[in-house]
Every structure is written in C-alpha cells, then in structure tokens.
C-alpha cells in the first residue's frame, strides 16, 4: 500500500497493466502510463522510471473479526458492484492458498528451501534492510524484540487470527523493550520493560501506566509467501527464536 504522489498537482491514479514481474502485479499510472512494480513500488519504465513510491505503513493483514475488534468504528469497502450485485463473496484463490506445492502461476522454484515455499512470513522493511518472520517461528514465540537494520522493532503475532504486525520500538529518545504478551479478554496486551505501561499489542497504543495514550510508530510490514519474499529480497534476514 502506497501514498499516491502528485503529478502536476493531481495524485497519480493506478490501473492493472496485465503484466507480471516476479509473480506479482505490475501497475500503470493513468497520467504518464509508466509501469510500476507493486512489490517494490518502483517505476520500471516510462516517464517516471526510477521513481519510488512511499509505502503507507499502517496496513495490516488480518481477519474481519479481528479487525472489527481492534477498530469497532471501521469503515469497510462496499462489495456492491456497478451492476448492483455483490462482488468478492468468496475466495477465488482458495485452492492456490491451500496448495503447499503451487508457487505462482508459472510454477516458480522456491529460491531457498530452508523454509517451505508456501510458508507465510511477515516481511519487515527499514531503510534498505529486510527481515522475514516466519509464522511457524512466531507461533512458538509470538513477541519479538528485534532490529531490522538500525531500526529497533517489535513483532507481534496473534495465533488465533494468524495476524502478524510490527512497530518501531523508538519512542522519543527511548528504545522500549516489550514482554509479557498475554490475552486480556478478546484483546492482546504487552508491557514495556522501561515503564511497566500496558500496550494493546496489535494497535501499538498504550492503554495504562506512565505512557498511557502513547502510540508506537508503524514500520512497513507485509504478509507474504516465503518464496515470493525471498525472490524479491534475496538478502533478507530470517528471524528464528533463540534455542
């Protein structure tokens, strides 16, 4: 998800080119007809070639049930199509997501078999650095204090809804350390070691203690299949719990 830059005073509008690169969407912008990779955010050809879109960092993949609990006042994209019927009422890619062996539409090879190609990872970006947090490891250790490049991050995993998200651990001049991830009713909470304040773990907002009302900064994080993340970011780090 990206911020849309202005072009001659108007935000660019994107469409689907029909092309694929590294098994993923190539977009075009209607104003200049440059082509853009939706995974790297970079214009690969056309007048805007070389321009890189800025990631809009608060996006998170989860279930409808989990999202509504976190944000009861949420708006929802309507499914009512132009012709009046409902669209997107089921998952057209269900079989693909269930298959352990099918990688992309051209049967891409898993570039690194240290993880299964269809393993879900949370891919986190900070500057030029990339780290992958495999869901199999996050189910063992669902709270991770880590660094991606120079950025201190916390990664949180909610097993029930298979939701992973990441925040920066920098708050003002402090770098916080989190612990004690726990269920609190239907919510997940954690505590920072520095002040003992209580945080909602999936929204990064402090709800009790000295830091009440503070909000952790987002870091760009995206849920992806391992084979796809690894073919785009060959130099990615891969997090594992300490034995």
């Amino acid at each position, binding site marked *: *998800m*990206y*911020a849309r830059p202005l072009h001659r005073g108007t*935000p*660019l*509008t*994107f*469409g*689907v*080119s*029909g*092309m*694929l*690169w*590294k098994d*993923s*969407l190539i*977009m075009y912008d209607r104003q200049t007809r440059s*082509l853009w*990779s*939706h*995974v790297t955010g970079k214009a*690969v*050809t*056309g007048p805007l070639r070389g321009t890189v879109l800025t990631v*809009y960092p*608060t*996006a*998170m*993949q*989860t*279930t*409808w*049930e989990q*999202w*509504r609990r976190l*944000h*009861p*006042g*949420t*708006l*929802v*994209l*309507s*499914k009512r199509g132009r012709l009046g019927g*409902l*669209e*997107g009422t089921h*998952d*057209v*890619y269900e*079989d*693909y997501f269930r298959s352990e062996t*099918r990688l*992309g*539409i*051209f049967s891409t090879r898993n570039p690194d078999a240290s993880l299964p190609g269809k393993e879900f990872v949370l891919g986190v970006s900070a500057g030029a650095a990339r780290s992958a947090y495999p869901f199999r490891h996050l189910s063992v250790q669902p709270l991770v204090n880590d660094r991606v490049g120079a950025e201190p991050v916390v990664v949180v995993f909610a097993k029930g809804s298979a939701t992973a998200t990441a925040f920066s651990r920098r708050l003002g001049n402090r770098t916080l350390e989190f612990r004690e991830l726990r269920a609190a009713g239907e919510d997940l909470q954690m505590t920072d070691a520095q002040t003992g304040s209580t945080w909602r773990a999936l929204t990064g907002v402090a709800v009790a203690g000295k830091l009440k009302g503070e909000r952790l900064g987002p870091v760009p994080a*995206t849920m*992806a*299949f391992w084979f796809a993340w690894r073919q785009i970011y060959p130099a990615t780090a891969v997090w594992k719990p300490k034995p």
Partner: protein
Amino acid sequence: MRTAGPFSPIALALLLAAALAPPAWGQFAPPETVEGAPIYTVLPVDAIPAIDDPRFVPAEEAAAFMKENEPVLGVTGGGIAKAFSLWLLNVHEIVNDEIGGTPVAVTW
C-alpha cells in the same frame, strides 16, 4: 502482498478474449526483464478493473456481506480505520483511495 495464483475461469475467459482481440495488448513497451527477472504479459490492460471511486459502509452494515474469518487489509490514519476484503481485492487488485486526506493506492 499477493502473488499471482493460477487463473480463475474468468481470467481464462478474458485471456481467450484477449487472444482474439490483440489490439488491447502492447500498449506499453516494457523492458523484457527488470533486474534480471522477466516481465510477462498475461492479460490485457484493465482486464482486472481497479476501483477509482471506492464506496465505504460502516461496520454494522458490512456484517451483512463480510464473513468472520474473511481476510482483510486493514489501514489506519488520520483517526480513520478502513478494511478492504482480500476476496474483493482479488478481483480488483488496486483501489485508488485516500486515508485521512492522504491519497493512497491499496494494492494486492
């Protein structure tokens, strides 16, 4: 971040239609490869229609068409939260939208 799955029947039908109507292809002249990886043209331009005028409904109203375990992309900004069903994004792939006054492209 979605990677392309196999073709749905609709996509296959579009592909066939595209093969019979070649002028829809080749509107772009992309390089054959980018950073060493090939670019493939698999569908005509706009065969998958991006959403340019997204309409939103409150959570209570959405309960009528959203399933509990349905995957969503959730976004917050400017005091607003928005949810985009991935089942819906599968058939549109891009939503040209704004969050709290910032123009954004939701891409899937």
